Each structure stands twice: as structure tokens, then as C-alpha cells.
């Protein structure tokens, strides 16, 4: 099943990307080429097979670890905001969302 330009536009919006019209066509061609490769997966019978999310789960159950719910990091607000595009009084600035 081939993708359409509408699919590309929808996916680009979901990914918060703004493709130019000429890029949309190029991307469409490349993704359709890619999904022809992905169609090979249909030939594999996976009835009753559990999805594998963590590689080590092949060896047995992997329990997700929890740590104590205590703060382990010192306050590094300034160091953390050094790379921020726009800050004021220790706050991240974004365009107004609610009028």
C-alpha cells in the first residue's frame, strides 16, 4: 500500500515538521521505496509471538527497576538554562498560548 501526499502532510504535522511542497514529493518517493522493503515483514508468521521490547527479555522476565523517590540531583537551574533559546527570571519563554 503506497503512501500519498496527504499521508506525508498528516505525518509531518504529527511530527511537528514543516516540509516544503517540493520536499513532500521527494519524501513521498523515498518513503514509498522504504515501505516496499518493509512489506517483506508480512511474509513472516508471527502468530503467538510476543513482541520483544527489551533485548534481555529473551533470557527471561525483565522487571523494570524503581528507585527510591528522593531527589538525587542538586539544583542546577542556571547551568540547565545556559542552552535555552529564551529565558527570563529563571523561566523558559514561549509564545503566548492563552490570550
Amino acid at each position, binding site marked *: 500500500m503506497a503512501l500519498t501526499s496527504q499521508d506525508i502532510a498528516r505525518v509531518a504535522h504529527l511530527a*511537528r*515538521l514543516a516540509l516544503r511542497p517540493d520536499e513532500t514529493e521527494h519524501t513521498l518517493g523515498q518513503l514509498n*521505496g522504504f515501505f516496499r522493503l518493509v512489506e517483506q515483514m508480512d511474509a513472516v508468521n508471527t502468530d503467538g509471538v510476543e513482541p520483544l521490547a527489551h533485548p534481555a527479555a529473551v533470557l527471561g522476565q525483565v522487571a523494570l527497576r524503581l*528507585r527510591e523517590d528522593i531527589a538525587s540531583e542538586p539544583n542546577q537551574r542556571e547551568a540547565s538554562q545556559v*542552552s535555552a533559546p529564551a529565558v527570563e527570571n529563571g523561566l523558559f519563554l514561549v509564545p503566548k498560548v492563552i490570550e
Partner: protein
Amino acid sequence: MSTLHDLSVAELAAKLAAKDVSSVELAQHFLTRIQSQDTLGAFLATDAEQSLAQARAADSRIATGERAPLLGVPLAHKDVFVTRDFPTTAGSKMLANYRSPFDATVVSRLGSGGAGMVSLGKLNCDEFAMGSGNDNSAYKPVQNPWDISRVPGGSSGGSAAAVAARLVPAATGTDTGGSIRQPASLSGITGIKPTYGRCSRYGMVAFASSLDQAGPMARSALDCALLLSAMAGPDLDRDSTSLDMPAFDYAAELIAANSQAAGSQPLQGLRIGLPTQFFGAGCAPDVLAAVRGALAELEKLGATLVEVSLPLTELSIPVYYVIAPAEASSNLSRYDGVRYGHRAAEYTDLEDMYKKSRTEGFGDEVTRRIMIGTYVLSHGYYDAYYLKAQKIRRLIAEDFQKAFSQCDIIAGPVSPTVAWKIGERSDDPVASYLADIYTLSSSLAGLPGMSVPAGFGAHGMPVGLQLIGNYFKEAQLLSTAHRFQMTTDWHQRKPGAAA
């Protein structure tokens, strides 16, 4: 001083301990070399002041009598490890001005607070580690020191080129689908990707979290073993997938082997499995010839070669290129132009800011993978693509366990060809994905794997032998590679650019 850069990590450490050279002198020597070979494109950032401060700290530790196997030896980090002392870009314009407030666990374990290695800077790589030729770096391509018109491999291409050209004795790399093994193979050095979870992912810029794994790249298996001993080990509070297995001295057995009698058959009893699917028509004859030559050498050392089968090898390509982009699209959603990273200069509202910032900040391959990942995770396609891929992933991992019932180690080529010309595969992503065929399946299974220099193929370019071990068998891989390197000198060959 002219030959310092030809010495191994182990030899440099011995010179430092004997006070034949200081860590500051070593840092200066290598920094001069890095500067003189800037056109290779291996480095994205250096900072002599920071490196020399680290070297002085190492020299003080040595002066107090401290002896540690890596203390004072220089290295450099792939630019996907966050570092306090250097910028971190992950090869992306998105992070052009990023400074991390903390060091990655691997960086701190190897550095001043741990093993005492001295960082000489940050190494070029494909953007967010997505690529196989390092030509997806947003900054500059990296040249292969064996032929500067060719790629060094990727995504850890800067690491591989820097080690091959003797700009650093060792480097860190990361491997998601082959990004340590493939550049090691194409640039003629040694590299190991440990079992998934062996090295902490804390502070590694995330690409595909169920696959990403850090590992060392150096000229020999022994040097890799020395670095891995410091890098690996549990980091339970900071990486939820870190294995709860104690750190291990991977080098001890290798060093002991050095004093054993030559001419014996140290690999007696070792069964090496050759997957039929790794030796088919898809692999170039020059690569196969070098790999077969290396296998014959391993046989001479006592190993037995047995045929095994990994029937889903070809399927590992679509499975990987569904799972990795899916995880990437999720991980890279953090780049929104708010807390860090590129923000567009002009926008109308918040959504417009997100879209413009992300579109400007990401390069073509990263954009393509985010698109693929978003699509396969979107409503109506999740089961058909993402879940289906995860199910085949389990079958691939189970096939490895069947193969390991017949052998101890699996061997084959790393890459179907030697290094190609820079730019040759830039606009054909599918062709580029297909070339990852021999590294993807073990990545999906989370198994340890390495590349060991095995000779040369077409155009005099290096060929690597891939060794894949069962879970947690890094020591066996390193030991096998070391025995091979005790009787071969492929890993000591020097490219013209390293003269």
C-alpha cells in the same frame, strides 16, 4: 616524541607510570597532531585549556603514587556523549549551542573522577548517530585516513578516523545498528559493542533507546578491554535498562595470555559459527577473501569452524528500520526549541515555532527517520508495523540462541563492501540501509559484537572480521580477538595519513 602517537593505550600508561612522559606532554603532543590533521574532519570540538587541566589533574594523581591502568592517557569522546568541559552537538545543527550541565556516566567513569583519562575533545559523527558513512554530520564529512576520498564509516566515523590516524590512542563510540563495528571495520581499527545494558546510557544523546549501547574503539582488543573495564558496570539509579552485573576486569586474561608460550593452540575447543546468510552473494568477494583468511588463522589457533543459520538475517533490515525510527521519533520529540536546542528566528505562534525550529534544526536523514517513525507509530499502523517488527525481533533473538547451541562465537563480515566514496550513497537511503545487513540482527538481539582488523580488500581499504558473542560474553570476544592479534599484524598497519 615523534612516535608517542604510535604507542598503544597500554604502552602509554606504562610510560606515564614510569614517568618517562607526563600526561600534560601527551595531551600537548596529541593536540598538536589533531590540529595538523584538521582536514580529516574527525573532531568537532577541542579545548586545549580544558584538556591540559585534566592532564594536570592526572599528573598530580600519578605524582602521589597512584597507579591505574588508564591514568593520564588521552582519549576523545563521540559527540553523542554529553560533557561539561566541551560542547555537545550530536553532529546536529539542532544542538549547535548546547552545553550540558553534567557528564555522561561513561564520560565520568573514564575521566577525572574515575579512571583518569584525559579528554582531547569531541568527535564528529552522523547527526544523532543516524548514518553509516558520517556524511550525515551537519557540520562536515569525515575522511577515511586510508583514502581521504572515502568515508570512514558511521555513525562513529570521527572516532574511527581519529584512532586510525593516530590522533588519539582510543575513543568512545556508540552502536545502535552497527555504529561502532562498521566504522571500525572500514577504518581498520578494533571496536566492541557490549551486551545491551552493559554500559550506562545516562548522558548519551538518545537515538533508539532499546538498541543504543556505548563501547570503546582503539587499535587493539587489549586497549578496548582496558577501556571497557572502566566504562561498563551498573548505573541502576540513572539508567533503567542498565544491567545489574558487576564491573569486570576484561584486560586481565589478555595480559596473562601475553606471557604464555607461543605456537600453542590457545583457541582449542572454541567453536566458531559461520552463518550461511553472512557468506552469500551479497558480500563483495574482496571482503569475503579477507574474512576467510582471518577465519583460517583462527583455525590455526585451534578453533573449529561450524556452519550455522540465521534465517531472518535479511528481515533484520526492515525490522530495525521500523523499530529504530519509531524510538527516534519519540526521543527526538524533545527538540521543541523551548528548553534547549535551535529555535527559529521568526514564528507566528507556539505550533509554528515548534515546526519551524524542528524543520530548520534537523537534517535530511533525521527528518526522514522521524517521518518513518511517526508513521509506523500512528493510529492504524502501529500493529502492522511496530508490533510486527517487535515480534520478528524476538524471532531473530531466538534464532541466535539456536545458533549458540552449536557454537561459542559467531563470525562473519561486518560490512558487505570496503569504504565507499564520500557522497556516493548520500541520496539513496534504502541502498544505505541494505549495507547494514550484517550488524543489525545482533543489535536487535542485544548481543555483544566486535570488529577486528582482518586484512585489506579492494583499493587497499581495510576489512574487519565481525565476532558476535552470546549475552555477557564480552570477555570471550576480547580474548579471541587478542589471540588473533597476537599472531597477526593487521591492527598495527598504519594508513598513509597517520605517518
